[in-house]
């Protein structure tokens, strides 16, 4: 058919210069840092301007990508391919006609080379990356508009915008990467910026601790990224050099290698596990999710950006980008119960449960994000690639909107407090626009028809069931009910009921009184961060035009926020309503824009068609595909199971061809399943509303104080309030239990072995005698006089000579140990 035809796909200026999208904010960052303070708006205009420019280019690139996809179709039609209705066809693997693989548009330069190995830097744009580029640029732009008002008067205003701009830039650079090295670059830029931004108000210790925790927890995962990249490189390099004339860092080469059937199973399994550990850390999956809620210590715009489109999405994106590695590594094709799906399922449930016991509005949202990321991972883990990616898209809008609403509430409604129980309540009358946006986003998040989350989340759940994971299907549904529950609780506490604390215009600076109130009201309720977050930004807003610094009660009353805050919220709320229609599967296939433009086509490409653009640069293809002659009659039958044993990712590709994406299965929408999930969500809502009214409004005696009366309830509550004791595990058990014994052992060796060898037994005996004399004899007598503190200090001094601290001995130990190690290696080698 079109095997040898050269079809010229359309491209365009925006697609070919998409690298500007990431570069412009990076340059903007440098400008802000260097000149920001001298500019009239203290650098914020640069941040807005650069992100605006990125947004324009990303939009252009998106439109041109769609044109490119469409052009493939017309080319095919011109080539005489028999086609049915333009788009209403299932994939070839599902029995439909083959659609050509649309190759990414690459423009890369050699960044550096080292003895023949070249590393590219630039952009490789396909459907997934252009979608995320646009999303990141758009969300970042809106969040920066929001920040103009929100952080006005902050003492590090310029630095805030600089870090925000670099943060977006890091994500953009990662998304458009065409090789793993660039992915790591963007990934690490984001890690650094998240540290800077979470610790933005580092004067308070809790904030800097949270920043450190975020940094180190993610770092644990980052080791996985480095290891995984190394494994992939050594695994894929030979294949890439032989067949694609590139190297093992190239993302396309990695994808092709993973699907080639030549990869050894163990290599790919180890790579997949290592990379997924990185994604666990970055995307806050169980058990490394603990940093995400603590990251709420940063300013609200940071949380908003971090949780919607950057940072946490990076992990999900990485899985989606090099999906073939996970597809093969975890045997998703054959319905294996993958590591990803299990982690995703666990994360959904545990974080949704945690969201119930939070008093801090931002922490509720943080756990909600963790839970939603669990959905995305679950989707990817069971082969539902498209719904998971679609969920990234819709989730970004409503989660960003929710965070901005929370920021708006704290900015204008509760006087910089985020504590729902103390300082909020009844705000719907004062902040109608914020309330409206919150409700819309909540409905979207919980998946109520026809808001965005309904189309994406239900798609994931539906596909999980369709791919044969019945248990995880129910986990997903249960998670949806839990989502409805905790969001109802948050909504009720913030916007309904009687105004409390700052929301009631109460004098705000009496933290002591508040703390006492808190202790009385919430007996076991002890949110560690509540007090901290209450203080956020206090000093920073002293010169705010709202007059928050004054203590007149009139100024303290809740009111609606300014236009700069409301504008992004309204835009996002609008998108939270309508963005679901971009891939509304149940409405018919003509609505499936994501399937058409974002999902790569699982078709094999002949090696001949791959133009070698030189090692280190990305793979470029010009020929659509070797379109296998597939008759047009197989489509539309059943749930699309026809192609299970053939197609990309279901077996080795034909000789001299490469696959870049596995043939994933798409579930047929079923009315009954939609009704089921809507019913589950409705049940969640009903239960939660009933509970809220009974507990918070009527103070139903059967519920109030349940945690005090019932042992089971109290244990459950404490378990949740302590976040499953994971932090205890990490800090008390792992750090104390592993790191300290090693240090102790080293100390012991230092003390006994080294000093013993040098000083000899006699010297040691003499010291021991001295020690006994000093401590037992002298100190027991003098102890009563001098006090115990002095005893401790003096015994420390007495111990001092026994410690080594001699550099030379360390040197001797170092060389000696190296020699011994080398001897062992030599012996092993010889024998």
């Amino acid at each position, binding site marked *: 058919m079109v095997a040898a035809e050269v079809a010229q796909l359309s491209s365009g200026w925006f697609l070919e210069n998409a690298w500007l999208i990431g570069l412009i904010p990076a340059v903007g960052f440098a400008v802000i840092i260097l000149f920001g303070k001298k500019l009239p708006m203290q650098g914020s205009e640069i941040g807005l301007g650069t992100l605006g420019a990125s947004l324009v280019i990303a939009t252009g690139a998106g439109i041109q990508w769609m044109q490119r996809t469409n052009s493939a179709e017309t080319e095919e039609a011109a080539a005489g391919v028999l086609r049915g209705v333009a788009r209403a066809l299932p994939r070839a693997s599902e029995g439909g006609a083959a659609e050509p693989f649309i190759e990414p548009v690459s423009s890369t330069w050699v960044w550096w080379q080292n003895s*023949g190995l070249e590393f590219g830097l630039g952009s490789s744009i396909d459907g997934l990356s252009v979608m995320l580029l646009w999303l990141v640029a758009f969300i970042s732009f809106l969040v920066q508009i929001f920040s103009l008002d929100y952080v006005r008067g902050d003492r590090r205003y310029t630095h805030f915008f600089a870090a925000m701009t670099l943060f977006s830039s890091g994500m953009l650079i990662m998304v458009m990467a065409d090789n793993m090295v660039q992915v790591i670059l963007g990934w690490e830029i984001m890690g650094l910026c998240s540290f800077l931004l979470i610790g933005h108000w580092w004067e308070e210790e809790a904030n800097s601790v949270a920043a450190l925790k975020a940094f180190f927890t993610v770092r644990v995962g980052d080791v996985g990224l480095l290891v995984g990249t190394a494994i992939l490189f050594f695994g894929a390099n030979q294949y890439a050099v032989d067949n694609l004339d590139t190297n093992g860092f190239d993302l396309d080469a990695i994808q092709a290698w993973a699907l080639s059937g030549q990869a050894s199973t163990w290599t790919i399994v180890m790579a997949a596990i290592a990379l997924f550990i990185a994604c666990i850390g970055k995307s806050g999956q169980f058990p490394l999710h603990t940093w995400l809620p603590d990251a709420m210590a940063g300013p609200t715009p940071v949380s908003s950006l971090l949780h919607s489109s950057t940072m946490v999405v990076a992990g999900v994106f990485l899985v989606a980008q090099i999906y073939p590695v996970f597809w093969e590594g975890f045997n998703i094709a054959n319905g294996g119960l993958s590591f990803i799906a299990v982690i995703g399922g666990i994360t959904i449930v545990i974080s949704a449960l945690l969201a119930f016991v939070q008093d801090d509005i931002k922490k509720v949202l943080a756990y909600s994000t963790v839970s939603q990321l669990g959905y995305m991972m679950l989707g990817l883990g069971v082969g539902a690639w498209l719904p998971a990616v679609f969920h990234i898209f819709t989730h970004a809008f409503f989660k960003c909107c929710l965070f901005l609403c929370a920021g708006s509430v704290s900015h204008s409604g509760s006087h910089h407090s985020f504590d729902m129980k103390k300082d909020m309540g009844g705000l719907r009358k004062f902040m109608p626009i914020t309330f409206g946006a919150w409700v819309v986003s909540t409905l979207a998040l919980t998946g109520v028809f026809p808001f965005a989350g309904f189309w994406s989340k239900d798609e994931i759940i539906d596909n999980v069931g369709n791919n044969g994971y019945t248990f995880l299907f129910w986990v997903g549904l249960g998670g949806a009910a839990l989502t409805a529950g905790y969001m109802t609780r948050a909504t009720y506490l913030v916007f309904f009921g009687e105004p409390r604390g700052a929301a009631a215009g109460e004098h705000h600076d009496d933290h002591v009184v508040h703390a006492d109130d808190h202790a009385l009201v919430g007996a076991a309720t002890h949110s560690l961060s509540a007090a901290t977050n209450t203080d956020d930004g206090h000093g920073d807003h002293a010169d705010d035009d709202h007059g928050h610094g004054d203590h007149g009660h009139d100024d303290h009353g809740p009111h609606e926020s300014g236009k700069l805050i409301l504008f992004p919220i309204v835009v996002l709320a609008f998108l939270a309503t309508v963005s679901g229609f971009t891939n509304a599967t149940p409405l018919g296939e003509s609505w499936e824009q994501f399937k058409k433009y974002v999902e790569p086509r699982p078709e094999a490409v002949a090696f001949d068609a791959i133009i070698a653009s030189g090692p280190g640069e990305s793979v470029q293809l010009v020929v659509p595909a070797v379109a296998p002659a597939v008759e047009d009659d197989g489509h539309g039958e059943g749930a699309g199971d026809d192609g299970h044993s053939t197609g990309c990712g279901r077996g080795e590709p034909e000789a001299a061809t490469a696959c870049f994406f596995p043939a994933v299965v798409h579930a047929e929408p079923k009315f009954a399943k939609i009704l089921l999930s809507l019913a589950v969500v409705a049940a969640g809502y009903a239960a939660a509303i009933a509970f809220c009214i009974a507990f918070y409004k009527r103070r139903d005696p059967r519920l109030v104080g349940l945690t005090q009366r019932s042992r089971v309830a109290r244990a459950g509550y404490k378990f949740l309030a302590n976040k499953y004791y994971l932090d205890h595990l990490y800090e008390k058990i792992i750090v104390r239990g592993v790191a300290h014994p090693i240090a102790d052992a080293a100390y012991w060796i230092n003390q006994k072995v080294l000093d013993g060898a040098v000083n000899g037994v006699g010297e040691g005996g003499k010291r021991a005698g001295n020690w006994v004399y000093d401590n037992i004899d002298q100190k027991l007598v003098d102890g009563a006089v001098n006090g115990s503190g002095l005893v401790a200090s003096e015994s420390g001094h007495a111990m001092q000579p026994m410690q080594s601290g001699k550099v030379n001995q360390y040197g001797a130990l170092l060389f000696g140990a190296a020699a011994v190690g080398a001897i062992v290696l030599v012996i092993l080698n010889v024998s």
Partner: protein
Amino acid sequence: MTGLIVAADGVNVAQNVGFGIIAFGMIFAALCVVSTKNVVHAALWLVVVLGGVAAQYILAAAEFVAVSQVLVYIGAVMVLFLFGIMLTRARIGSEEGLNNTGWQLGIPVALVLLGLMSYVIVDTVRDTIIPDRGPAPTEALADQILSPYLVPFLAISFVLLAAAIGAIVLARKD
């Protein structure tokens, strides 16, 4: 040990003899560096070792490295050492207590290392003969530095810059 194998097959005898003489001088000088009681003498013995290394480079046809060795080590580093000795007011005459209390520990460690390395070296390159080559043109060296090994070169530049700044910061009097 090095002087023992003077005239094997295919070996340039004159070169080998020269190597042996220089090597013995270097080893003797190196032993003096680590055993003399006089700090200034130690520095002067070190000059002998470094000069010997430069001579060996010339024997191995690495003339550019040899010249660099003379310029950098004997010209600059040794002057630094002498300044360091003077500024820390070491006595010009001999000095007691140049060694640690646990200095004996160094002997077994060094001997074990030497034994290990000798075994491995002899085992690996037993009869390998270095062919006689003409001196490598400096131009080729420059090509190597400025194309395939450019990244390490840039890294070195940063290190040198950082070292210069660091040394100034550390040594200046506040």
